[in-house]
């Protein structure tokens, strides 16, 4: 295939959680996806420790940028822009990526695009299946998020339809894995055990599926408690816990609710495509059930390959490239890491002339993110 040099060449940096990701794309084409993960350092804590993640990002940042450039075989001078996750995420972790991206863009004389992590999870599918349909219906499920989003324009108009009111789906996997003593992270190991088990062995509750419940919101806290209680009862009775059946039945409950609500959202909004992203999208049962239910409903399912579903720099680059292609305003040099960046803000445009460079004053948003930053300013 001829190299399409008319498409924007963008480098993206992602540090919102425990993966230091640097990706490079040209338009919808993935050129490099370098990731350094600190997940092993968190495993013994049973969850991501913010300060451990931030320290690891600092060490991995420059080497990961250089690895991505080498993998892509491009020169930094040819980049059309630098994109970075501005939020949401862990404040201290985001700050490392945002600071590096600003320094990188400034030193190269390239425009900077602070973009939304959730919108990036959706936009990454352009690298797998080409241009996103408009609107796109997206189900994002990971250790940090569980959201149903309707995106008429991924660069400017993303609407939250529903999200979890307690735990994220991935968190529920982690917690149940801990109860079953299966280690961290829980997603892959539960998926593996579930393949040997019977999903109908135990009927666990489906959260927020009653007639009066919010249609598109999720809740996994009650399910988590029900599963833990069931396991404890077995243990208390001196019986063996059927790990595979518990894993399969728990997973079935999560996946049933996720796919049911996602398909319902597509039907209600007349959308004939469903995109699933986030780390939990790698779950084999979620993929299988989504495929069947989408097919039954006449909906085309789009799920990127697992490596693009988990946090990575390519997804940030993909959204950055779309920002460049659509002529969206770049960010200012005073771009801040915003741990609670609303999903409705696909990017953080600069103020003033719309290019932002050299404007070191004022503030982009009106919600209070200083509070968020200062809360754990000491070590995160």
């Amino acid at each position: 295939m001829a190299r399409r040099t008319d498409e924007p060449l963008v480098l993206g940096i992602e540090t919102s959680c425990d993966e230091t990701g640097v990706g490079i794309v040209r338009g919808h084409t993935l050129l490099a996806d370098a990731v350094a993960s600190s997940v092993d350092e968190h495993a013994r804590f049973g969850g991501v420790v913010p300060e451990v993640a931030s320290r690891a990002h600092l060490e991995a940042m420059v080497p990961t940028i250089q690895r991505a450039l080498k993998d892509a075989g491009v020169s930094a001078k040819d980049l059309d822009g630098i994109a970075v996750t501005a939020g949401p995420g862990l404040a201290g972790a985001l700050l490392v990526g945002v600071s590096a991206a600003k320094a990188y863009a400034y030193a190269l004389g390239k425009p900077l695009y602070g973009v939304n992590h959730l919108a990036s999870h959706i936009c990454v599918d352009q690298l797998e299946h080409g241009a996103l349909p408009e609107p796109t219906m997206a189900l994002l499920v990971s250790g940090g998020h569980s959201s149903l989003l309707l995106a008429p324009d991924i660069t400017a108009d993303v609407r939250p339809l529903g999200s979890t009111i307690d735990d994220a789906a991935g968190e529920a996997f982690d917690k149940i894995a801990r109860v079953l003593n299966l280690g961290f992270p829980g997603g892959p190991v539960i998926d593996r055990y579930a393949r040997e088990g019977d999903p109908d062995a135990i009927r666990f509750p489906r959260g927020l599926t009653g007639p009066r419940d919010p249609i598109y919101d999720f809740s996994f806290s009650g399910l988590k408690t029900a599963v833990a209680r069931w396991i404890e009862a077995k243990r208390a009775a001196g019986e063996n816990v059927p790990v595979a059946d518990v894993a399969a039945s728990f997973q079935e409950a999560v996946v049933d609710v996720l796919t049911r609500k996602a398909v319902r959202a597509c039907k209600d909004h007349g959308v004939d495509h469903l995109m699933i992203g986030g780390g939990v999208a790698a779950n084999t049962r979620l993929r299988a059930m989504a495929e069947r239910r989408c097919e039954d409903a006449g909906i085309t399912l789009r799920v990127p390959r697992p490596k693009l579903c988990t946090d990575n720099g390519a997804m940030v680059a993909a959204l950055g490239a779309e920002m460049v292609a659509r002529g969206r305003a770049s960010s200012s040099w005073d771009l801040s890491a915003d741990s609670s960046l609303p999903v409705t803000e696909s990017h953080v445009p600069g103020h003033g002339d719309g290019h932002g460079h050299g404007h070191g004053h004022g503030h982009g948003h009106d919600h209070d993110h200083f509070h968020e930053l200062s809360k754990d300013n000491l070590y995160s």
Partner: protein
Amino acid sequence: MLLLALDTATPAVTVALHDGDSVVAESSQVDARRHGELLLPAVDRVLAEAGRKLDAVTGIVVGVGPGPYTGLRVGIVTAATFAAVLDVPVHSLCTLDGIAYAAGLAGLEGEFVVATDARRKEVYWARYADARTRVTEPAVDRPAELAERVAGLTAVGAGAVLYPDAFTDVRADLPQHQSAGALAALAAEKLRTGGEFLPGQPLYLRRPDAQVPANYKVVTPQ
């Protein structure tokens, strides 16, 4: 020689350009919560004021702490990224050394201690034989616990000003905050005289706050 110096290890966000002889331009703002936002605009401002472009810089000087703030990493990752793009070296210095050097430039002689605010009711501190000579490793302690060790010693820095019960001879008239200009001047002197720099790692001096979650909590009512 054209050095770009930056330090975000303390509440100060400070940037300076130094040509080997003197400070060409400097910017210092004290705002412990906005290191990430303030640093790049400050670099841009300092370069503009000096009428220079970033690619004229021959080395990056950075204070690597000790520092308690999330902001500590802002300066270090910015320095590392600039250096990678420009293909110039990073000269890393202890942040306390910059404050000590500034005290010397302001006329302080003899022995003294430098202390900065480590938050959590602690200070980062080190002892100096003179403005160029640190005689202890940087440490983090509760002021009351080091009162005996610093009793009667001249003390400089915002950490000393904060705890006058421990630091009895505080020179509040001397610069309390880090100045990238002083840090750059110290680096320029070291580069001339073959002095040593630190490795680029941040001086956290504390282990990450991280607890292994307590044993799984039983949710079944007893």
